[in-house]
């Protein structure tokens, strides 16, 4: 069995308003940071997983992302996979 470390990034779709991102953008400007054009908040999920090769693990991660980690009505996802 091969071991993999996976980082999944879940983000609100661009068409969905992100009020937490807007509030953080506003605070960033108050802090004095200049030039911020956009700030959006997402989630990062780290998974350690084993399986028979990368393809099998990608299938499992795709299922997890599509059915659980992200709600594809409002969110997009992508992930980075590293063999340990």
């Amino acid at each position: 069995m091969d071991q993999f470390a996976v980082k999944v990034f879940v983000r609100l779709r661009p068409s969905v308003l992100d009020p937490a991102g807007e509030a953080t953008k506003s605070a960033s400007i108050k802090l004095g940071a200049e030039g911020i054009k956009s700030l959006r908040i997402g989630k990062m999920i780290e998974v350690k997983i084993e399986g028979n090769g990368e393809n099998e693990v990608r299938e499992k991660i795709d299922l997890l992302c599509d059915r659980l980690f992200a709600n594809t009505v409002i969110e997009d996802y992508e992930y980075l996979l590293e063999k340990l």
Partner: protein
Amino acid sequence: MDSFTVGVVVFPGSNCDRDVSWALEGCLDIRTKYLWHESSDLSDVDAIVLPGGFSYGDYLRCGAIARFSPIINALDEFVKSGKRVLGICNGFQILTESGFLPGALVANKNLNFICDDVELDIVSSKGGWFNNGDEKHTIKLPIAHGEGRYHCDSDTLKKLVDNELISLRYKNNPNGSSFDIAGITNEKGNVLGLMPHPERACDETIGGTDGLFTLKSLILK
């Protein structure tokens, strides 16, 4: 014949289960039975309420973990059989996460947790959930949520409008919901999800009785 029984689902973190039971039993004389989320036996209930609260601590997304509980898996057959399911607040979030209703509920536009009474327009009488005897077109119900902004894409919204699936719209949109949506049904009309709490408006002493009809309509065939 056994009397009509409404199952009230209890998740870890549900906090309106007893309110729903009180409203049904105490105000409407309808028998209730608590259903623990790990149960999948729905054989002795005739309708189901998914109550408000914070199932599984709202971890990941509101309703996302509850979707995988045995009782929600069993709900598919129950809904297909035409029996009635009412999802209130967190229950509405669970119904969208599990695909029984379209769209999603996301953080309120202003980020506030809003606890208030709101005026609602009854838009559609699909499923008979709001055909109140007084022919009221506007009702007042309490809301209490941080993530109640209804969101869907434009195709879904068109489908909701064209098929008269929007039951309730806010008169003064408090949370930024698309098209002021506060509650929707499925196409058959036997599943209703709404953010306002009808169970908190069932007695004049707590501010109103506009929620009675919706709970009472659980017994409709």
